[in-house]
């Protein structure tokens, strides 16, 4: 499959074309999306400019093998100004596969609020002023009833946050999956694009059915019957809460410490036993790691009840729970529900609120800015009021909060404790230098780029010996291998199952021959292009540093030494530069 559908929202035109060479060279998923974005030369355009593109891209394993459930979104990030890349599960990959589309490239701007419906290679443009302002979940309910489509569909949409052009707005995919990070929601909002409904009716017989069937069954069996996916199948990502807390790796009160005294209340165990309604899955994934909690709340004389379901994961628990010192699971779920409806990135929202709380404590902002609200760690009631003010998007300070922690620290001060890397709010780990180095140098500043926390953990438990050079080596090696997994595009939770050997075999069964060496070369090429995009769009290699506050906290590996970190950043940087200038 190598079909790309280009949609021009300004002209309301669309055109599909094949590009076999591109897919041969870059596999699919993140590889192809990177090359497409690179060739579009986004250097001199604002992320919200009419010409700013949105790319959705899947790879050769999507729709074919179990747990290959990701769709890669690529765009110019309104938060960092450079490479915007976010991955989401759900059913989107399946709908694109059913439509026979490997990539969808959207440019232009709609003249009025609208949504688009993609059916195979056809696109309908539908005026949608009546649903502008609807929450992200409500938009799905409405469109699912409205759009008949063919069979299973995927619906992706923005909430009010995206409409307000918040650079920390997410795009919600089907049930409780998100293109969360780096502001795709704002880009969609800037195009007046409320939602995209995708369905397809294509069918392709497998050329080598026995080979495909054998590998499918092998992967399925490993997913269901081995221990590889147990963590995700059982407690899900919140299983990390207690182990991280035990090693002082759980960010608490804006990264002041790695131990949260209320961790047991927000642990995967407590959430599962007391709030979990059920697990659900992305299409074609037997693991089912999506955890939906149920929250029952009284209203009207405390004798009427309303019940809602909201998904929870480790990162939102850190960002809106431990890092804000909220230990009541019900308050946390209530906050998550507000964030889900508004359509913000839960992580950026949490990091921004934790910066604001510390800025308030330190007197950089006062009740004058907050309109009388007193920000205190642990005060869920006030945080909810702040979020609702942010949703109104009227008062200056709350409008500013909508623009994320880096913007706020720039305007009000407190850069040293605005815990972001390259402009993106930090993921939830204080495990040590490898986690932070990965956030700083990773192409999308995500914990999923190179999983440095895992190296920190190995060093803490003694299975890896600390070594500056080797740690940088391992981070780069991991990130580059993940470019291949993200080109296929499999869920990274399944990375233990998708070994290089299996990937090569899986490709071969589909008639794609790649050697280990080919994959390495492709991953380097992808890395190079991504960094070229970053640098040409303003990512400054001369300004690489951690937020100062991090040097004062005890990580799982103790306090970080500034000189060592400087050396490691320099080393990392020189390796990226070698990559950039290599032929």
């Amino acid at each position, binding site marked *: 499959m190598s079909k790309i559908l280009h949609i021009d929202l300004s002209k309301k035109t669309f055109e599909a074309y094949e590009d076999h060479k591109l897919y041969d060279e870059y596999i699919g998923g993140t590889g192809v999306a990177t090359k497409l974005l690179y060739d579009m030369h986004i250097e001199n355009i604002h992320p919200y400019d009419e010409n700013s593109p949105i790319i959705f891209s899947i790879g050769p394993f999507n*729709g*074919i093998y*179990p747990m290959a459930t990701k769709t890669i979104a690529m765009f110019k990030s309104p938060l960092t100004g450079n490479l915007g890349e976010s991955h989401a599960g759900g059913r989107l990959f*399946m709908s694109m*596969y*059913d439509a026979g589309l490997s990539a969808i490239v959207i440019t232009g701007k709609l003249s009025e609020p609208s949504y688009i419906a993609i059916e195979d290679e056809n696109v309908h443009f539908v005026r949608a002023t009546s649903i502008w302002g609807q929450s992200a*979940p*409500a938009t*799905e*309910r409405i469109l*699912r*009833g409205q759009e008949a489509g*063919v*069979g*299973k569909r995927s619906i992706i949409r923005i909430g009010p946050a995206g409409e307000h052009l918040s650079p920390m707005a997410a795009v919600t995919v089907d*049930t*409780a999956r998100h293109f969360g990070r780096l502001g795709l929601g704002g880009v969609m909002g800037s195009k007046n694009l409320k939602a995209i409904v995708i369905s397809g*009716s294509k*069918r*392709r*017989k*497998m050329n080598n*059915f026995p080979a*495909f*069937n054998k590998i*499918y069954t092998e992967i*399925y069996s490993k*997913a*269901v019957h081995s221990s590889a996916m147990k963590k995700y199948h059982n407690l899900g990502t919140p299983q990390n809460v207690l182990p991280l807390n035990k090693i002082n790796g759980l960010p608490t009160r804006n990264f002041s410490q790695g131990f949260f005294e209320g961790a047991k209340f927000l642990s995967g165990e407590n959430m599962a036993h007391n709030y979990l*309604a*059920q*697990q*659900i*899955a*992305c*299409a*074609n*994934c*037997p*693991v*089912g790691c999506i955890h*939906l909690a149920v929250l029952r709340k009284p209203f009207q004389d405390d004798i009427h009840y309303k019940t809602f*379901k909201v998904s929870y994961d480790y990162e939102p628990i850190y960002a809106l729970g431990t890092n804000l010192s909220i230990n009541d699971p019900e308050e946390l779920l209530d906050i998550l529900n507000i964030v889900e409806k508004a359509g913000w990135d839960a992580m950026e929202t949490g990091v921004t609120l934790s910066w604001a709380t510390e800025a308030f404590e330190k007197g950089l902002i006062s009740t004058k800015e907050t309109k009388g609200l007193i920000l205190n760690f642990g005060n869920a009631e006030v945080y909810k009021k702040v979020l609702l003010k942010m949703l109104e998007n009227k008062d200056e300070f709350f409008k500013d909060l909508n623009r994320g922690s880096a913007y706020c620290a720039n305007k009000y001060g407190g850069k040293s404790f605005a815990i972001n890397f390259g402009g993106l709010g930090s993921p939830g780990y204080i495990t040590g230098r490898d986690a932070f180095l990965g956030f700083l140098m990773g192409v999308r500043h995500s914990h999923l780029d190179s999983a440095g926390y895992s190296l920190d953990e190995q060093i803490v438990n003694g299975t890896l010996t600390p070594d500056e050079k080797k740690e940088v080596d391992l981070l780069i090696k991991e990130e580059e291998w993940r470019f291949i997994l993200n080109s296929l595009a499999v869920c990274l939770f399944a990375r233990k199952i998708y070994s290089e050997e299996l990937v090569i075999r899986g490709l071969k069964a589909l008639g794609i021959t790649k050697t280990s060496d080919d994959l390495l070369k492709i991953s380097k090429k992808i890395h190079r292009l991504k960094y070229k995009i970053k640098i040409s769009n303003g990512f400054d290699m001369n300004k690489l540093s951690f937020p100062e506050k991090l040097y004062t906290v005890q990580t799982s590996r103790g306090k970080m030494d500034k000189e060592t970190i400087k050396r490691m950043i320099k080393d990392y940087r020189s390796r990226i530069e070698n990559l950039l200038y290599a032929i």
Partner: protein
Amino acid sequence: MTRKVMRVINREQCIGCYSCMYACSRTYFHIATTKLSAMRIKNYPGVEGAFSIRICAGCPDPDCAKACPTEALTVRKGGGVDFHEEKCIHCHKCVDACLLDALQWDPVLKEPLVCSQCGVCAAFCPNNVIALVEVDDE
């Protein structure tokens, strides 16, 4: 007489992964899709996590066969129906007659997708939602 037919045994345990539908389409059509499956996992608009499993009940006296004007569907020994493609006039009456909404339709060939009660869908269910179950018609 005892016979084995598909049954939903734990509806509430469904996680909506569609592995069953993928298994059915894969086995009978060699195509990686949910769409050629002789069963369906239904979602409800806006109800998160609620799935309804529509699977051929293997009726001893099936409505779909009764509704077929050309005897393209005939009662199978042990329950359910056999499909005789050459007799099918693509009228869709069989699908309309299935109260369970279990009998699916192939929109390209314009034919019913008939369940053969083989249990491959159950073999690929990770959560024990569906199973081939022995029933006694006494």
